[in-house]
């Protein structure tokens, strides 16, 4: 097991290098550099030249790449143009807000979707099954940003039941439970949007995985032994049905941090999503590179974690 993990971690290195080269090439395709746009108009050509030299912008692209990578290896992603702070500081400030929002909606969707998926599968073609199949269909077909806007219109603007945007009520200085309550209150609508999307997906996976398992011979054996239906479904079937579902969790791990760009920006949730859009709109390339590279790293770690969990819960799979 340890050997497997070590090997997988080593395999990640060339992929990450590939990712960084790809990202670097993409950003090199942008015309001009930071100094040819939005800078102080009083800056003379000489100062610009001096700054370019300092930032290594006068060097060929591959040299710039090595300068950048040298920093990245040491954990230094350079300074954000927009925030005038190190990229890592900016990311650290906002990533946890994304994490909290995504984690709450993730836990909610697991709690909601797995029981529904199981019941839908055991009562296939029942009214219950049809109803939730339709709900899942709506969930995967509606654009998240549109659903978010509808919720803002209904609940925040028309009914004034929930705040339109942000993470806390401005002007208040709450602490402890009060602050947590205020955050939860602001979290409700964005969380609803995120949860609908993931519930729809997870429910479909659970249902189809469960349907597959119920047909297996060992379930027939369990029934033939005279076990209670509850034991058959929740002990024998569910355990096996959860195996493919667990891989989905691994795939979701990076999205816990990357946040939902659209949902966060519609609700002005101060997470990594709006920051990424800010970086895009201000052509803040160091920040953009940093965010994308960290997200890629998390994706790879998520896949690894999924594979390991897969092997841990399913003894039939041997990691080689």
């Amino acid at each position, binding site marked *: 097991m340890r050997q497997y993990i070590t090997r997988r971690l080593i395999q990640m290195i060339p992929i990450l290098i590939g990712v960084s080269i790809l990202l670097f090439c993409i950003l090199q395709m942008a*015309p001009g550099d930071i100094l040819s746009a939005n800078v102080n108009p009083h800056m003379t050509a000489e100062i610009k030249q001096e700054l370019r030299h300092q930032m290594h912008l006068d060097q060929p692209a591959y040299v710039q790449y090595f300068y950048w990578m040298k920093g990245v290896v040491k954990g230094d992603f350079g300074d954000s143009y927009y925030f005038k702070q190190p990229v890592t500081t900016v990311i650290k400030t906002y990533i946890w807000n994304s994490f909290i929002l995504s984690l709450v909606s993730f836990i909610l969707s697991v709690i909601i979707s797995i029981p529904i998926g199981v019941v839908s599968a055991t009562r296939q073609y029942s009214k219950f099954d049809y109803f939730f199949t339709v709900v899942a269909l*709506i969930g*995967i*077909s509606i*654009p998240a940003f549109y659903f978010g*806007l509808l919720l803002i219109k209904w609940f925040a603007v028309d009914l004034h039941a929930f705040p339109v945007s942000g993470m806390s009520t401005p002007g208040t200085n709450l602490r402890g439970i009060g602050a947590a309550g205020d955050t939860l209150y602001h979290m409700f609508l964005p969380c609803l949007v995120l949860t609908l999307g993931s519930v729809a997906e997870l429910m479909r996976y659970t249902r189809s995985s469960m349907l597959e398992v119920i047909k297996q011979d060992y379930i027939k054996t369990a029934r033939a032994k005279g076990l209670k239906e509850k034991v058959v479904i929740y002990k024998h079937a569910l355990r096996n049905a959860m195996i493919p579902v667990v891989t989905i969790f691994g795939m979701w791990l990076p999205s816990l941090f990357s946040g939902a760009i*659209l949902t966060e920006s*519609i609700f002005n949730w101060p997470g990594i999503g709006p920051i990424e*859009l800010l970086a895009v709109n201000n052509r803040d390339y160091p920040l953009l590179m940093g*965010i994308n590279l960290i997200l890629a790293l998390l994706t790879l770690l998520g896949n690894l974690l999924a594979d390991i969990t897969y092997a841990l819960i399913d003894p039939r799979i041997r990691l080689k």
Partner: protein
Amino acid sequence: MEAKTSEEVKLSEEGIMSPWRLAWRRLKRDKLAMLGLYILAFMVLISVIGPLLSPYTMEEMDLSNIQSPPSFKHPLGTDEVGRDEMTRLFYAGRISLSVGLFAVVISTVIGSALGGIAGYYGGFVDTLIMRIVDIFMSFPFLPLLITIAAVMSDWKVPPQYRMFVVMLLIGVLSWPSLTRIVRGQILSLREQEFMQAAEALGIRDKSKIFRHLLPNTYASIIVSATLGLGGAILTESSLSFLGLGVTPPTPSWGQMIQVARDVYTLQTQPWLWVPPGICIFLTVMAINLFGDGLRDALDPRLNR
């Protein structure tokens, strides 16, 4: 005896049917899938012939009649420069549907060709292609898309050509998952006897891959392309909503919703942003319904 003969008749009848006709027959029995197909056909129809029937054009402004709510003359009202909202919705449908369609065509061609090549040759070529797939798949899709779209906005592409950039972008970024699927299937097909026959006949590699191997994976390619179409339409709408996709004056459904970012419009002029959202929703739902039905119909293991 009687039952057996009817069974035999059924068997012989199915025996002469091609797998595709069999799948079509199964599909026709799937009511939900057919509902999806009808909704999709309807959306295509109004996008294609809607602008021809409308008395207004896409750009026609009427400054004396701006931001008017739905009325008999303008069933979906008018926007901030007095353009007829319904006509724009039809045109936006043309853009959104064709961007989605071409993006899927691009990604399907790249995905199946690379999957076929990787699976057939194996070895170094396979490793190289699959590592590229790994690299692409380790990016979260939307952040990468937004980054590239931002860089491409700096190229000063004229607005009327922006939709081609968006098509290309979505198409070029969404092939890796299909490559994995196709490669997996080719790996097992390659070992089968008909490939030994092809080998013995001395058929060239190119035609072995594209005429003998890939056609055997058409079922999964078609299902993946169908469901991918829904995804591509959603992606285009998100991108255009963020202002990084199709840009004005060319309308697209996602871009029409952009006006709702303004709270005043959101609250008081729902006719401007609610209908395009419904169009995206209906189209994507129809595609998903049809795609699910298609998957069941093409799966030989399911015999209903």
